[in-house]
């Protein structure tokens, strides 16, 4: 790696503001669970019980 390449990389690294793991998790939860995201995150790991919210009314496995 030459000096110029190293310099560009250093400058790039200084400018990066990547999301934190917490931020990534929050964004992912919003995408996965919509308005239920906060609830799913708050009760993790027990939020598996909230899976019920994932089925649409009338299409639940227990509906038939």
């Amino acid at each position, binding site marked *: 790696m030459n000096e*110029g390449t190293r310099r560009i*990389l250093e400058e790039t690294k200084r400018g990066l503001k*990547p999301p934190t793991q917490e931020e990534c998790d929050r964004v992912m939860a919003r995408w996965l669970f919509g308005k239920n995201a906060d609830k799913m995150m708050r009760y993790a790991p027990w939020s598996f019980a909230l899976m019920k919210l994932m089925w649409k009314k009338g299409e639940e496995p227990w509906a038939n």
Partner: protein
Amino acid sequence: MKDRVSRYERIHAAWNHEERDRVPVAPLNCYISAYLGGISIREMFLEPEKLTAATAKTREIIGGGGDQEDPNITTLDHLSLLGKSGWDQVTLNWRIWDEFPPEGNIPSFFEKAIIEDYDDVMERGASTLFFNKNASPDVFKRSLDDFLYYEFEYPKVYAAAWRKFVEEQETPVMMGGRATIPFELVLYYRGFPQLVRDVMTQPDKVKEMCEWLLEREIVNAFKQAMIMGSGEVPGAEVIFFQAGVVGPPYVSPQVFEELVWPTLKKGVDMIVGRGFKAHVHMDGDLTSVLHILQDLARGLPPGKVLLDLEKTNMKKAKQVLGDKICLHGNVPAALLCMGTPEETDAYCKQLIEDCASGGGFILATECETPWNAKPENLKAMINSASKYGQY
């Protein structure tokens, strides 16, 4: 040779509208790297060391290769838990064959309406699509361990292979992360006929859905880019923000402006705002919306936005965007498959004449290099940059 311009410096100079030693050349090689490199599609998807070795072999075959390489992040996106960027085998109907034609094919998408109700998805989230009746039941045949491996472990294995490739080949990667322009994501999940109807009957809802999809799409790309080594691996700081059919002729200039542009611009702002670079890849002929695209880098520091064009008139693009946005394109796929080296050479010469002045141009393929492009034509394309692109 200590002071030789590196490929990364050459690419960096183009992004910054600087005339370095010559015009960079970078065919966007995807499946052709596996094909010429002698591996199957299955191996391309599952064995990153084989993919990087095949890519290195392909570079030799086509005369040394370009100034950067596509690390084929689509293969990563396809295999994880919920897929990424619309490359999603879980809820969408993507078929992945093991071999190239005639035994198999490159991945093909069979669209159907997965999102039935925009409001419901926005309210209860995308995980509900898992349980959509239209989702392929094949998903449930795959082992959960397999999904978890490709979601959490495989990206690190993949990144390590590409880091090694970059060091050995002294060639930057074209991108570190990948995101899809939201309007196209809606298209994948809604299907073309339904989306066309929605554009006419409920445009505000389409717009709202695009907004809703954007954040996860971009943040996920940041995460990928960090795993790929942003700030350490040349090129990994680039986010490939792409779409195939979100501009003319697939949608009208008016629809583009009202429904595509807002989240396209917002996404680019998010990418650059976090210190990454935006490689905006858009198919179609965008000549009629260049006046809109000239605002793509508005309010952003220089050298952070690149526009990768397919059928757009590059001479016109250079006139309208040339001093603001780095241009990338657009040697025709048909020419690379059906033409001769002489015709390819002549086409590249003209493209360089039209776009290279003042820097800000990377000679590249339109969309991606077809898997069955003639190696001698790619060789002619790569040679043309040294032949006609000296600054």
